[in-house]
Each structure stands twice: as structure tokens, then as C-alpha cells.
């Protein structure tokens, strides 16, 4: 039976790259629905690898061996028979650098829908506006939707990247250090935005520092060198970590 | 709808894959057809004839040595000119010249690379040959020397572009280190930059050789069409005949399948093997140096 509060369940997941380095070892983690789950820890701990496994973007990298299961709505998405295109529409991703596609602002948002075969102008217009509004960008760009997306600021571009994902009405949003290239004001906007919309989605966030992790986490998981050291609700994990290593990292003794 | 788009994507991916492999197919086809038409020459014409020193097809003398020699002599002459000028020019444009000079020189080199060889051959007949005959007081201007000069013009752009690439990939840190030690720019160029780029320069020279040996029209028009083995050092100013020119000028007149036809294809095989050898060696040299550079820099 699938726990209604549980959106994704990771069971004994191990990933090994072709150059022999092991990136993730025997990860078991359950990601709750309609909350922000933060994956944090020092660089090279395997957070991004895990994130990219969740929508099978690792297929593009030199992954040699994957074992274990990732159950999404009860289905193992690592199964070779899974339709990855549909999966990626349901599990969207925002990257650390705001990479806008070399298209107009409008086309960046409508891109995913057009890939699905949606050609009706009215439907696209509606979806683009809804997504831009939800990403709190509409008021800033509504009068220049046809401009190249590269013309807007970095912070706006990152919200455009979010709108691009939201347009597909995903169930899960993966964020890989989404604010690492942004100034503090833009960072605060993105953080506030995600708090506002988290109720309708399931958000998995890899923050770029431990302060952000503590700020954002409803649920948190601490990764160290490919291992899941400890996980639990944010308020307990950051205040009273059980593991000494988590304690050391959270208090800034290493990092 | 999902299904048809999946199927059309499957077809597209297949077409792309097949196109990707087409180059292998074409090289193989070229080899097969050269062998098919050219190998019978070995059965009909005795080896002693084929590798003899007399090319006189009307009397069935099919010795390719004079032609091989002709190709070598013009290529050698061309390289003697093109290597110093080509490398000198690339050093100048990549290490010394200000940008405005490059914005003039580079397009001119590109234009030279794009000049059809028949145009150079035409000017060879009209301008270069009479000029050289007068200047050096020769019986004819249509000689290996004129051919070598034209070939040098044809090989130079190849040498320049590859040498320049090689010089540009030398890490700036090398130059800065030499300059910091008190070397002048000139000493840095010849003591550090050029040696560091030597495998790229070697590749450039090899491809220049390939370009010269394979060149047809310009050489055919100005070398005087004399398939004879020369006897002394004056070979450079005498008329010669290259392998490429022989094929081009005689293939039109032979009967398909005749011994003469087969021998011309056999020369084609020789040219194919030479260019294959040069290109494989060149890519081996540049590949080896690349992995070495990666090792040094990592």
C-alpha cells in the first residue's frame, strides 16, 4: 500500500559512474508529498546525482551501474520500460545556473507543451500566462514576451526556468542549487516563491549552503561522501542531530 | 498520435545513424572500385614493365617510375617553398602581427585556399612559365619548377591554417613563463612556442605533402607533360609528368578495360595508398600529441 503522504520512495539505491567512482551507496529515503525536502551536505556527497536520478537525467551521463529502486507513485522509475519523456514532464527540474533556451520568453515557457503536441494558440497563451504568474514573473515580462529570454536579468531568468517547469503541471519539482548564481534579493524571491507554492507540489531542493537548508527544510537529508547519514523533519534535524557528523556539519565545523 | 511520432522518430534516428556510417561506406567503395578496375593490371602487365623506367603506353611500356619521380620532384620543390613561407606566415599572424594585419592577411589566405587549381594552372601557362623561361634562360617554362611554384601556392594555405591552430593551442602560460625569465618575444617564439607546437606543425607539413601529391590540374597544365626519368640535378627545370596528371590527361583517350586503362587505375591505387598513409600518420601524430598535452596539463 502506498502511503498517501509519501510521493517518492528510494530503496537501496546505489549508483556507480563508469570511471569507477561510486557516487551513491545504498540510499533509502522517503520523500513526503507537498513539502520541501532538502538534500544537503558537502560537495561531492551525491546530492545532485540523486536529484538527477529522480527524473532519469543521469541517462545522459556516464553511469555504469544503478541498483535499487525509486518508486514514484508506486512505480519503479528505474525500470527500463518506463516512459522517461512522461516521467520528466511529471518531475521537472531547475538547474543551478539559469539556462534559458535560445528562444523568446514566451517560447521558453511554451516549449514543454509544444513538445507534447499542443498547438492551439489559446491553450498555449493561457498556460504561459498561468505559469509566469505562478513564478511571479508575469508582471515584469508580460509586455515583452517576444523578446529573447537572454535579455532579462539573472534572477528573472531563474524564475523563467521555474515557470518553464510549472507550465507542464508537474507533480514534483527538483531544484539543484537554484540560487547559487543569484544575488541575495533574487534568492529571497525564489525562496519565498517556493514556500508559497509547495502545497501544490512536492519539492526536492539541493541548497547551496547549510543556512538555506535550515531555512527551507520541512524535511531534510544529510549526505556525506555518497552515504545518507541521517534524515528527518527539518526542525529536529537542524536543532538536535543524532549523528556527530551531521552535528559537525550543521554547526560549521567542516563543510 | 504518440505512436506515429514515435515511429517517425525511430525512422529519423535510423537515417541519421546510416548517414553517420556513410563515410566508411564511401572509403570502402572507393577502394573496391579502384581495386576492381586497377588490380587486373598486375595480371596483364608484368611487374618489371609496371615498375620500369619507361612510360610509353602506345607501345605498351607502362613503367610508372618516371611518373612517381615526377610527383616526388614537384612535391619536394613545392615543400621547399611552402614550408618556410607557410610556417613563417603562421608564426607572424599568430604571435606577432597586430589584429588589423590579421584581418587583411587571413581572408587573403582563405581566398588562396579557395582558388580553383585550374585558375592557377591557367596563370601558370600565361604568366609564370614565360616569366621563368626568360628569367632563367630555359628552353621551356613548362617545367617541374613552375609546377612546384604553383603547388607551393596551393599547399601554403593548408600549412598555414593547421600550423596556426597548433600555435594557438599552446597554453599562454608557456609564453608567460619564458617572458618572465627575461627571454625576448623572439626567443620565446623559437625557444618555447614553436617547439611546443611541433607535432601540430608536423601534421601541417604532412597534410601539405598530401595536398601537393594529389593536386592535378595546375600541375598537369604547367609541368610540360614529359614522362621521362631525368638524369641529373637539372631535373627541377626540366619538363616532368606526375601520376595525377597522367591519369587526368590519358584516361579520356583509353578504351575501358584495356591494359592502359587498368594501369591508370593502378596509379589511382598508388595515389590512394599514399594519401591513406599520410592521413593516418598525420592523425596519429596529432592524436598522440593531444593525449600527451592532456597528460602534461592535467
Amino acid at each position: 500500500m502506498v502511503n498517501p503522504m509519501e510521493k517518492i520512495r528510494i530503496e537501496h539505491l546505489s549508483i556507480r559512474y563508469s570511471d569507477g567512482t561510486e557516487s551513491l551507496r545504498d540510499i533509502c529515503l522517503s520523500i513526503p508529498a507537498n513539502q520541501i525536502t532538502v538534500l544537503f551536505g558537502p560537495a561531492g556527497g551525491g546530492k545532485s546525482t540523486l536529484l538527477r536520478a529522480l527524473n532519469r537525467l543521469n541517462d545522459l551521463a556516464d553511469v555504469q551501474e544503478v541498483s535499487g529502486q525509486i518508486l514514484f507513485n508506486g512505480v519503479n522509475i528505474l525500470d527500463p520500460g518506463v516512459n522517461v519523456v512522461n516521467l520528466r514532464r511529471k518531475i521537472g527540474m531547475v538547474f543551478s545556473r539559469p539556462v534559458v533556451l535560445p528562444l523568446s520568453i514566451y517560447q521558453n515557457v511554451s516549449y514543454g507543451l509544444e513538445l507534447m503536441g499542443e498547438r492551439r494558440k489559446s491553450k498555449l497563451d493561457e498556460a504561459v500566462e498561468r505559469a509566469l504568474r505562478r513564478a511571479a514573473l508575469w508582471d515584469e515580462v508580460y509586455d515583452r514576451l517576444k523578446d529573447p529570454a537572454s535579455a532579462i536579468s539573472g534572477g528573472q531568468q531563474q524564475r523563467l526556468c521555474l515557470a518553464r517547469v510549472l507550465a507542464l503541471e508537474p507533480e514534483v519539482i527538483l531544484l539543484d542549487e537554484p540560487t547559487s548564481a543569484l544575488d541575495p534579493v533574487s534568492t529571497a524571491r525564489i525562496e519565498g516563491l517556493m514556500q508559497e507554492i509547495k502545497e501544490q507540489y512536492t519539492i526536492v531542493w539541493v541548497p547551496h549552503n547549510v543556512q538555506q537548508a535550515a531555512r527551507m527544510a520541512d524535511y531534510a537529508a544529510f549526505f556525506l561522501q555518497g552515504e545518507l547519514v541521517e534524515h528527518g523533519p527539518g526542525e529536529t534535524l537542524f536543532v538536535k542531530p543524532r549523528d556527530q557528523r551531521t552535528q559537525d556539519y550543521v554547526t560549521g565545523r567542516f563543510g | 498520435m504518440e505512436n506515429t511520432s514515435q515511429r517517425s522518430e525511430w525512422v529519423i534516428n535510423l537515417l541519421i545513424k546510416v548517414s553517420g556510417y556513410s563515410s566508411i561506406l564511401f572509403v570502402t567503395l572507393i577502394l573496391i572500385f579502384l581495386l576492381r578496375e586497377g588490380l587486373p593490371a598486375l595480371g596483364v602487365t608484368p611487374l618489371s614493365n609496371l615498375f620500369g623506367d619507361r612510360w610509353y603506353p602506345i607501345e605498351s611500356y607502362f613503367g610508372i617510375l618516371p611518373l612517381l619521380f615526377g610527383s616526388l620532384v614537384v612535391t619536394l620543390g613545392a615543400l621547399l617553398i611552402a614550408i618556410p613561407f607557410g610556417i613563417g606566415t603562421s608564426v607572424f599572424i599568430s604571435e606577432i602581427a597586430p589584429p588589423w594585419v590579421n584581418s587583411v592577411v587571413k581572408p587573403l589566405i582563405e581566398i588562396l585556399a579557395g582558388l580553383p587549381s585550374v585558375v592557377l594552372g591557367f596563370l601558370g601557362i600565361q604568366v609564370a612559365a614565360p616569366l621563368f623561361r626568360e628569367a632563367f634562360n630555359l628552353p621551356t617554362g613548362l617545367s617541374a619548377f613552375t609546377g612546384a611554384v604553383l603547388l607551393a601556392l596551393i599547399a601554403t594555405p593548408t600549412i598555414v591554417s593547421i600550423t596556426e591552430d597548433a600555435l594557438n593551442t599552446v597554453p599562454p602560460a608557456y609564453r608567460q613563463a619564458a617572458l618572465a625569465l627575461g627571454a625576448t618575444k623572439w626567443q620565446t617564439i623559437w625557444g618555447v612556442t614553436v617547439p611546443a607546437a611541433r607535432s601540430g606543425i608536423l601534421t601541417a607539413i604532412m597534410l601539405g605533402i598530401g595536398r601537393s601529391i594529389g593536386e592535378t590540374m595546375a600541375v598537369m597544365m604547367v609541368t610540360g607533360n614529359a614522362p621521362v626519368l631525368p638524369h641529373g640535378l637539372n631535373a627541377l627545370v626540366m619538363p616532368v609528368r606526375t601520376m595525377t596528371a597522367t591519369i587526368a590527361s590519358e584516361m579520356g583517350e583509353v578504351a575501358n578495360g584495356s591494359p592502359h586503362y587498368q594501369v591508370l587505375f593502378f596509379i589511382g591505387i598508388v595515389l590512394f595508398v599514399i594519401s591513406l598513409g599520410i592521413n593516418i600518420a598525420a592523425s596519429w601524430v596529432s592524436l598522440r600529441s593531444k593525449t600527451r598535452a592532456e597528460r602534461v596539463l592535467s
Partner: protein
Amino acid sequence: MERSLTSARIQQRIGFSLLGLVTFATVLPVLLIIGFIIVKGAPAISWEFLTAMPRNGMRDGGILPAIIGTFYLTLGTAIFSVPLGIAAAIYISEYAPDNFLTRLIRIAIINLAGIPSVVYGLFGLGLFVLFLRLGTSILAASLTLSIMTLPVIISTAEEALRSVPQAFRTVSISLGATRWQTIWRIVLPQAMPGIITGIILGLERAAGETAPILFTGAAFFLPRLPQSPFDATMALPYHIFVISTSVPGMPIQIQYGTVLVLLVFVLGMNLIATLIRQRARARRQW
């Protein structure tokens, strides 16, 4: 110390001037060639020269059939080599795994680029003219030129595709695009200026080639324009060869005029390629 420093400076001064001279001597012939052909060829150019059939054993009249022929051959070459070349470049840059077969493809392309043009002529004669019985024809000559042009198009197109940032591909895939959708909607449009430049440079070479068409499609003289792809054709490069070596009493002005027309054809393509490259560089967003 002071002395050796200044002598090193003098050495450098001399060396730089010498290399400057070498460079000048390398590019001077190009200027002379172009200038000379324009000066000698321009008087021959007239409306009649460009649009009339040759008369009086080609010693009079125009060179229309050679112009048309070169146009047909270039077009024919484009029809075969452009789709095939782009598709091959897409395979190498976007699909090919790093394995033995891919290395073999690379070696094959390098070798195709190095094979002498007259050997392409032999190959075209053996395969297209004789084996496939296409005869000496525009079709056989175009196919021969296509295979010769292929490596130029593949390698420039591959470079253009590779210069498109990897992040665009990752983002597109993450939004649910398939590999082909990503290539078609994002990668190809971005690489297009580079690809077109490569195509033009390849076709420019094909337009100026003589040796590959000698035995596959070129005709010494034809009293009428080619009617179908199965006809032989006159062509500018071969025509220059013919009138400068095999027609006694050929007026020198017609020879230079013909050379000028070919030069304008070829260098015009070169210029277009350069302009496209510069425009694309100025407008690039990444």
C-alpha cells in the same frame, strides 16, 4: 648584460621584419592574381559573353553553357551532399558513442578529405559512369563531387553543432524532449549559421574542381544546353582547361574573361560564407 639585452632586441627587430616580409610575400601573389585577372578579364565581360552560346569553335560568342553547367553541377552536388553531410555530422556530434566504430568513422572522414581529386574522378568513372551505367552525365559528376565535398561539410557542421552549449541539451531533455526534438528545435537552429558556412565552402570547392568531372560528366563542347541530369555538360573549370590548352588560336581575352567568371562565382560564395559567419557571431546570445 646591457649589451646582450640590446643585441637580443636587435635580433628580435630583424626577425620580426623578416617574418613580416615572408607573410607579405605569401599574400602578395593572391592580390596580384585577383587584380591581374580582373584587369585582363573585365574587358571580355558583356551581356553577350554571359548569355550566348559559343560560336566559331568557341573562339567567339559567349560561355553560357559552361556557366549553366557549373550551376547545375553545384546544385546537384548540394542535393546529395547537404542532407547526407548534415545528418552524418549530427550522428557524430549528438549520437555516436565513444567506441571503435566511431573512431573508424573519423578516420574515414579524414581519408575522404585527403583522397586526390583525380582519384575521385576514377572512382566516379568506375562506380557511377560504368557500373551503375549513368554514363558521362551531370548526375554521375554531381554524385562524384558530392562524395568529395562530404568531408568538408561534415567536419564544419560537426564543429558548429559541438559549439552549441551542452546545457541547452540537458534543459531541453529535462523538459521532456526526445533527443531528436532537442536537436531539431534547439541545437540545429543554433548551429545553422556554422553549418551553412561549411556547406558554402564545400560547394565552392566543388564548383571549382576539374579533375573529378573530367571522366564523369564534363564535355569539351556541346552545341546545346543539357536537357536532363543524364546529359553531359560543359563546366567553367573544364572549359578554362580546354580553351587554354587544346584550342589553337583562342583569343586571350575570352580566356581571361572565362577565368574571371569562375573566380566571381567561387569568391562570391566565399564572401557570402564570411558574411554569414560574421553576422551570426554578432547575434549569438551565448
